[in-house]
């Protein structure tokens, strides 16, 4: 523990030492003077005899220093002083790095949350979800699920679940909640233990509606029951049916679909009561997802083969209901491949772009450090001449680089944490319990700091060669007036690379933004303006199937009676909403063997009221719309879209008046053709669609499409309030959500919007990086050549010539970099087209935009250096020499 007192005494030790040495030299001087030397000569001789005072002192001090830490601390303090002396460089370097590290930390966290992090269940590594081999989803019918669960030999329990929204009434203020309907074995097969009370089990299920139980999520228990343990055993009303609360799920468990957090769990067998799906129909796939833990030693491939053999058996046994049934197993995290794959592709693309940002930042740092080293070559030479070791100078250099890296990393990380917190708190789609839990964890912090250090040190090392080769005598003698040659040096190559990368980012963000803007002004096959939707499910309000049509008619009439309403349509589902539509396979009229493999197409299916087309703004191309006479007692009719007509009948003209067959063999006559549109996503291929009269196949799901007369001030808002009041007058128990039509597109546009925002942000970052890069380069070249410029001005050079001399090279580099970047960016946007609707690189506006943007950036970045070059005063400059 010797060093503890030394730390406190060090100051005195050092003072003693300095004084002692000073006295030594004085004594020598006196001695020499007594021998007859002049004072001046004596002082000189004394110093020569003593040797390098500073070096001796440093070495003497080093004896006392706590071996490494103290020198490091000294280096840090020195570096700190150095950096404070050049705030411009420091701020530029730290910001550059902070941008890059921040961007990478954000993207890495999101990827970490989306892709790397498994579900919060024990032994998540062996959990796999089922996905159809021929379709990107995992839906199953209930009988199929039972067969797969009971016949497979690969899983330790196969669970299934479905999402639904229901109205919960705990005695006051009924409210709509998202719930997860789960198979009886759900909690046991996942290996979960209740936080409170107990779960429901497979043994609780005895056929449809036999297990009216609720297991709350911890979050819901916390927010809606205030952590009240007395809630166990309580009976609450769900869609007006009594359910008993059994327990509370573990705190960190939010269900088995990442980011979609339900309020509570009810047994799947309660679905007929709550939602009304058919538990016996083999052909209706309404279970959302099925998953299970693989038995030890079973590979996913073996399990898939096992499931395939069951699928083959089912197809053979139930040829009328089942098509070819094959399976693949996927990690369940984000609904397997269905959402997972496009997301992964997008994240990979984003990772690539942020990687580019990092690269650009590194190039920027490299040229910053190189310029700084060149500026400091005189100082380095002086220090070398005064006896400093090269090692010492390099150590100082690396200390500076490390400090900048750490500062940049810290700033970047802080920024990213703020951003990620906001992202986690955000609910992107109204009315849906979607939470992007993307808070950074230790992995993210470690990655960010590591990235910062690596990039900082790597590019702090750029000037090393310069330092090692410095010949102090040459530099001190000649000054630092070397002028760059014709060939590009490493710094300029770095700058060109950086500009190219930034131009790629700017190009892709412009393409994405253009695509999004264009897609917003597209015609989707229905109108958006002046339309308000009211959405409800009559089963939630306790309506039985036979009471539904009359109620729906009353709702339509009530809406029509509102002032300012032009027309009202009703449908069970609407295109481009989150719920999506049902679909069904259909056959041509002359197909007699109605097995799924003979189907003509799998068509989306909308059940609509007579006035729907007019209210929604979907154009009827030919034929007629429905009437209220198209009910159960009249022949089945349909309006199909153009794509349907083309695919099933060969052409639109030959469809009218002809028949096709539904899955159960019912013949349906086509009475009208509607225009094509977008139904599930903006980027989808043409979809076949059939519209069926709502009276011929009633549904409790009710969506009112209310078209207001155009030109009404504040019409939307008034209509919404009036609609709510009118519907409440019809039935106070009705839970209705009312929204403007364009707002409902939020969910569909979510992906493209996020993509565009991310790309936009990256584009801005790229632009900022190119500004700092060009600015650094231009400012440096102006300051290097200030003397030369001064001479030119003195010899009568014009402003134009001065500018040309000072900044010509910077602009040339900018042009080369932008050109390369533009080409690369256009190639890269081909990838974008998969995510952003109508993202086409062949867009003159985008091309012009990129060129303009880069030119503007160049002007902005060179503005200050240009001013400095123009204000050169030759007299002042030449006098300084």
């Amino acid at each position, binding site marked *: 523990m010797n060093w503890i007192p030394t730390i406190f005494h060090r100051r005195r030790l050092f003072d*003693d030492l300095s004084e*002692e040495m000073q006295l030594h030299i004085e004594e*020598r001087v006196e001695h020499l003077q007594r021998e007859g030397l002049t004072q001046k000569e004596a002082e000189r001789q004394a110093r020569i005899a003593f*040797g390098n005072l500073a070096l*001796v002192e440093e*070495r003497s001090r*080093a004896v*006392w220093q706590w071996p490494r830490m103290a020198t490091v601390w000294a280096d840090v303090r020195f570096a700190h002083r150095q950096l404070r002396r050049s705030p411009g460089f420091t701020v530029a370097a730290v910001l550059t790095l902070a941008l890059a590290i921040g961007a990478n930390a954000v993207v890495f966290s999101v990827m970490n949350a989306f892709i790397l992090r498994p579900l919060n269940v024990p032994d998540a590594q062996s959990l796999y979800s089922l996905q159809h081999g021929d379709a990107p989803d995992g839906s199953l019918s209930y009988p199929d699920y039972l067969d797969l669960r009971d016949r497979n030999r690969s899983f330790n329990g196969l669970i299934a679940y479905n999402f639904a929204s229901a109205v919960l009434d705990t005695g006051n203020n009924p409210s709509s909640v998202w719930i997860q309907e789960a198979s009886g074995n759900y909690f046991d097969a996942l290996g979960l233990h209740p936080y409170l009370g107990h779960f429901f089990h497979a043994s609780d299920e005895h056929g449809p509606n036999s297990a009216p139980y609720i297991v709350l999520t911890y979050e819901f228990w916390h927010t809606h029951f205030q952590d009240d343990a007395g809630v166990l055993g309580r009976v609450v009303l769900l869609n007006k049916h009594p359910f008993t609360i059994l327990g509370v799920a573990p705190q960190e468990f939010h269900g088995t679909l990442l980011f979609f957090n339900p309020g509570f769990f009810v047994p799947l067998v309660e679905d007929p009561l709550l939602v009304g799906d058919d538990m016996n129909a083999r052909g209706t796939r309404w279970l959302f997802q099925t998953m299970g833990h693989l038995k030890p030693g079973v590979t996913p491939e073996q399990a898939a083969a096992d499931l395939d053999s069951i699928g083959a058996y089912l197809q053979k046994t139930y040829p009328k209901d089942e098509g070819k049934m094959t399976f693949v197993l996927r990690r369940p995290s984000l609904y397997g491949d269905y959402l997972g794959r496009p997301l992964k592709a997008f994240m990979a693309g984003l990772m690539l772009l942020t990687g580019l940002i990092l690269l650009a930042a590194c190039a920027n740092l490299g040229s910053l450090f190189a310029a700084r080293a060149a500026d400091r070559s005189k100082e380095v030479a002086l220090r070398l001449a005064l006896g400093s070791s090269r090692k010492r100078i390099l150590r100082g250099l690396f200390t500076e680089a490390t400090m900048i890296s750490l500062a940049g990393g810290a700033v970047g990380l802080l920024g990213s944490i703020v951003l990620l917190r906001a992202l986690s708190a955000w609910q992107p789609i109204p009315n849906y319990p979607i939470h992007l839990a993307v808070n950074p964890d230790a992995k993210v912090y470690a990655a960010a700091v590591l990235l910062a250090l690596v990039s900082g040190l790597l590019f702090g090392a750029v000037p090393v060669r310069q330092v090692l080769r410095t010949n102090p005598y040459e530099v001190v003698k000649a000054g630092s007036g070397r002028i760059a040659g014709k060939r590009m040096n490493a710094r300029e190559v770095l700058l060109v690379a950086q500009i190219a990368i930034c131009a790629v980012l700017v190009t892709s963000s412009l393409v994405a933004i253009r695509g999004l803007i264009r897609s917003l002004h597209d015609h989707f096959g229905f109108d958006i303006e002046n339309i308000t939707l009211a959405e409800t499910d009559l089963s939630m309000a306790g309506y039985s199937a036979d009471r539904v049509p009359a109620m729906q008619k009353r709702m339509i009439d009530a809406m029509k009676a509102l002032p300012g309403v032009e027309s009202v349509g009703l449908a069970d589902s609407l295109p481009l909403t989150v719920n999506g539509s049902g679909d069904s396979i259909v056959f041509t009229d002359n197909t007699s063997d109605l097995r799924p493999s003979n189907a003509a197409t799998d068509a989306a299916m909308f059940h609509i009221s007579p006035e729907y087309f007019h209210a929604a703004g979907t154009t009827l191309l030919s034929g007629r719309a429905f009437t209220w006479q198209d009910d159960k007692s009249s022949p089945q009719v349909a309006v199909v879209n153009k794509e349907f007509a083309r695919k099933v009948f060969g052409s639109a003209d030959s469809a009218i008046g002809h028949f096709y067959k539904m899955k159960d063999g019912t013949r349906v006559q086509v009475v009208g053709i509607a225009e094509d549109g977008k139904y599930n996503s903006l980027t989808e291929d043409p979809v076949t669609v059939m519209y069926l009269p709502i009276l011929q196949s009633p549904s409790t799901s009710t969506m009112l499409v209310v078209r207001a007369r155009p030109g009404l001030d504040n019409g939307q808002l008034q209509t919404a309030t009036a609609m709510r009041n009118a519907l409440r007058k019809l039935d106070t128990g009705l839970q209705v959500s009312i929204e403007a039509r364009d707002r409902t597109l939020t969910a569909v546009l979510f992906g493209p919007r996020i993509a565009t925002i991310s790309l936009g942000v990256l584009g801005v970052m790229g632009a900022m990086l190119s500004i700092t890069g060009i600015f650094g380069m231009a400012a440096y070249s102006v300051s290097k050549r200030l003397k030369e410029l001064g001479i030119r001005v003195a010899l009568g050079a014009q402003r134009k010539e001065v500018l040309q001399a000072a900044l010509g090279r910077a602009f040339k580099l900018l042009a080369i970099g932008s050109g390369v970047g533009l080409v690369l960016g256009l190639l890269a946007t081909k990838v974008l087209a998969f995510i952003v609707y109508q993202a086409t690189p062949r867009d003159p506006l985008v091309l012009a935009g990129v060129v303009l943007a880069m030119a503007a950036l160049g002007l902005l970045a060179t503005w200050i250096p240009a001013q400095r070059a123009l204000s050169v005063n030759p007299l002042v400059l030449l006098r300084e020499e």
Partner: protein
Amino acid sequence: MTETSPRDLFPGALEMMILESLRRQPAHGYALVQHIQQRSNNLLQVEEGSLYPALQRLLKAKLVKAEWSISSTNRRVRTYQITASGLRHLEQQISSFERMFEGIALVLNPGKSPAS
């Protein structure tokens, strides 16, 4: 700490000479330099400054102690004095140095046997 003066004969030689000088009488830095140069007939051209890192090492190892005082010539000086452990250290150093010197001598003059 490998930081010995480039003109040191070998690591520790300077320290040994300092300790030997101090054993005879306490002295301050300047006097030590004078003493070593005189005793070596100016054969050892030691940079005066190189004395100080060596002195600090000795201080740190508690082989010497230092005190500010006024010299006979009425100067403020920092006088070094050898400690008990400094004496022991010096004895060891000298005996190991002598053995080493003997060994080197044998290698350099192979004709002479140690017995003669």
